[in-house]
């Protein structure tokens, strides 16, 4: 039975590889025969500019696109207000990516069988999965409501079609006729120069910046993830040519989750500043900094043992700070560097903070009653810290390089390293001192995106990417010695990333 099943699988594999190969040849022929570049979606449709005018490679902005965004999605040509548009114009774009990918997880604990029945034992083995798949669906809509008043609305779904509001905000720009006074209110991406929402990579681990989301092992502070969209208000100021930029945001310490369900009554500030320099043929170089300082709850009132949403108090502090550099070495080669030093209060380090399990998209998936095993901890009165507990801190760095062959073809490479500086210890490692490298991450991503055409109506990228990620000490414990093990995962992804 087992043999015939394996034989059957082999046939399927042979068919799949042949099918994929034929599909690739056809795709190649279609793409090779496509017309030369044109380009522009919603904003491009409005202004008649090619995609490449604003995007180094869609969706990553270039300096001109950044300025357009900083001006509130306006060219500042006295034709920005919707009154100047054809009444039929509606600024909506959707984006989705059909893909084939193969994910390989180095160590997974699996049940063992004897004579066709579970024997109660477990083994650790690599699990690889491959197949055709879909990304989520984004509906981008944004533009001006009136001159200097703009909006953005982005309902976004996961691959199953479950929607949430990824971005929603209204912004007021050029207050007092000055580019130094711009405000927005809503749920938005923090003013990261290296934007995660405009990332060029799509794999599970490579599709986010690890530096923007790093959380030490056992840490309960989900609120310091600068890559997540946040709820709040932002001030932005910039020079007329956008060479100088400053911003300050005040956001709820909720990691963007709605309904005041997570850590209400706590706020976080996020500050950025950067200056760009004209280095002639080398291009425009930008250096800047960011700093996040905030507090978040570790203590929730309970009802029947269940944390009450919106009742968070017992605020503890956390911070993230770092430098950003965007460098160009001529028209084809770019390098962006982001550093981060992060630290969390000792209570977060022991797992306090997030009293609700969230789905990462602003929704709640479960409400736990602490201290039920597996549920987040709650710092109720009388709780004491475990012996040896200390505030975790770490350092991270992201290097992202681009080779821009043309507006239609870009090669991407990225290396990220997250290194613990001080472990939380305490209960995180069962009362023992944690290994110094516990939770450290190293990851690299390479790929290319090829846009066979660009028009003012739509965009399509043939996307190819490989990501490899290594994390220390987070694999399944050694079944014999109980020692922590490292874990490696990798993913290869091919897809057609399109928007219209």
């Amino acid at each position, binding site marked *: 039975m087992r043999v015939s099943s394996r034989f059957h699988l082999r046939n399927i594999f042979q068919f799949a590889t042949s099918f994929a190969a034929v599909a690739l040849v056809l795709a190649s022929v279609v793409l090779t025969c496509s017309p030369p570049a044109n380009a522009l979606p919603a904003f491009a449709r409005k202004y008649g500019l*090619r995609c490449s005018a604003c995007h180094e490679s869609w969706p990553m902005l270039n300096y001109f696109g950044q300025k357009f965004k900083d001006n509130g999605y306006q060219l500042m*040509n006295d034709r920005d207000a919707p009154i100047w548009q054809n009444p039929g114009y509606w600024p909506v774009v959707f984006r989705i990516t059909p893909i084939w990918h193969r994910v390989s997880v180095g160590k997974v604990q699996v049940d063992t069988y004897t004579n066709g029945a579970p024997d109660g034992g477990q083994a650790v083995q690599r699990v690889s999965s491959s197949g055709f798949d879909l990304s989520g669906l984004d509906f981008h809509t944004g533009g001006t409501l009136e001159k200097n008043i703009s909006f953005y609305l982005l309902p976004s779904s996961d691959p199953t079609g479950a929607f949430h509001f990824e971005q929603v905000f209204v912004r007021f720009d050029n207050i007092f006729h000055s580019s130094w006074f711009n405000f927005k209110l809503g749920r938005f991406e923090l003013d990261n120069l290296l934007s995660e929402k405009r990332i060029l990579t799509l794999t599970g681990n490579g599709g986010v910046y690890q530096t923007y989301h790093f959380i030490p092992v056992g840490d309960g502070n989900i609120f310091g993830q600068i890559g997540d969209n946040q709820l709040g208000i932002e001030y932005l100021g910039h020079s007329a040519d956008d060479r100088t930029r400053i911003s300050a945001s005040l956001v709820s310490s909720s990691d963007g989750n709605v309904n005041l369900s997570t850590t209400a009554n706590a706020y976080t500030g996020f500050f950025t500043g950067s200056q760009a320099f004209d280095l002639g043929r080398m291009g425009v170089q930008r250096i800047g900094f960011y700093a996040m300082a905030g507090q978040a709850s570790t203590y929730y009132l309970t009802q029947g043992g269940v944390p009450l949403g919106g009742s968070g108090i017992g605020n503890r502090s956390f911070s993230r700070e770092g430098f950003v550099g965007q460098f160009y070495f001529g028209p084809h080669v770019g390098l962006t560097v982001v550093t981060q030093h992060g630290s969390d209060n000792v209570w977060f380090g022991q797992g306090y903070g997030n009293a609700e399990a969230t789905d990462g998209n602003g929704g709640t998936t479960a409400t736990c009653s602490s201290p039920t095993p597996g549920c987040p901890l709650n710092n109720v009165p009388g709780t004491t810290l475990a012996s040896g507990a200390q505030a975790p801190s770490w350092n991270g760095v992201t290097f992202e390089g681009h080779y821009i062959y043309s507006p239609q073809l870009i090669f991407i490479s990225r290396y990220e390293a997250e290194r613990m500086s001080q472990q939380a210890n305490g209960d995180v490692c069962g009362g023992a001192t944690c290994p110094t490298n516990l939770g450290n991450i190293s990851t690299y991503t390479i790929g290319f995106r090829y846009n066979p055409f660009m028009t003012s109506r739509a965009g399509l990228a043939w996307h190819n990417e490989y990501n490899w990620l290594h994390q220390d000490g987070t694999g399944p414990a050694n079944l014999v010695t109980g020692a922590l093990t490292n874990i490696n995962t990798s993913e290869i992804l091919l897809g057609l990333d399109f928007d219209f």
Partner: protein
Amino acid sequence: MRTRLRKWSLLLGAAAVLALPLTAWAQLSTFDLEKALNAESHVGNLTGHAKDAAAPYRRYCVGCHGTLGDGEGENAAWMEAPLYQKPRNFQLGVFKCRSTPTGTLPADQDLYDAITRGFDRSNMPQWNTLTKQERTDLVAWVKHFSPRFATEKPGTPITIPPEPEVTAERIKAGRDVFARVQCWKCHGVQGMANGPSASTLTDDLGRPIAPFNFTDGTRPKCGDTDQDIYRIFMTGLDGTPMPSFADNIKPEEAWDLVFYLRTFMSQKSKEKELAKQLALKPVDPNAPVGQQ
């Protein structure tokens, strides 16, 4: 047999994936890089080279101005008067915003300023995010489209005398110039672009064009300083019905006219205050010449 088929299909698939970037190369080669690539520009102490601007032109400009610089990019079809104007046809070598006399080629600095400043009420944005070198290279690239730049020298930039102080008398004198040279025929007696000729105007290519409305708060296309407005009178906007008045009005009269036009504009200004005190009335086109 099946194994061989699988091997071949895998090889073909891999070749197809690897070949995809080559299509970008193939498409690049369709872009015309051969024409007059030795064209140069000089802005300040920078020297621009046309050949270095091919990629930026393709990235930023070609959608409107077209591969051949003829203003027939794929978006041109959607730019219609009166809301928008067609993109500039660089092949003609005729430019509105110049510091040089009418009928002459612009200075490199003029083209550089146009790229940097952009044009209000058009799809031409400010490209001041580009490096100065990139903009200077683009000037050379723009020049390489027109044979005029190969055979003619740019005109000598006009001299703008120092701006005199604004006085009530100068504003009144500017009103007289406005009446005498009949600015109102196109721009209207109150500068609202509603003069009797306004609806009949066309550019040199026969396309409808609207006169500038001084009252709607928008900026003049060629710059909004007093010097910029003065320059427009003296150089004209080539390719449009706006002529040069260099032979019709004296420099001091041009300054008077600048001050009078400022009284139409919505921005606060000393000119507006003085005009209010003077209780200036719009010119009367029906009054005898000299009493308008």
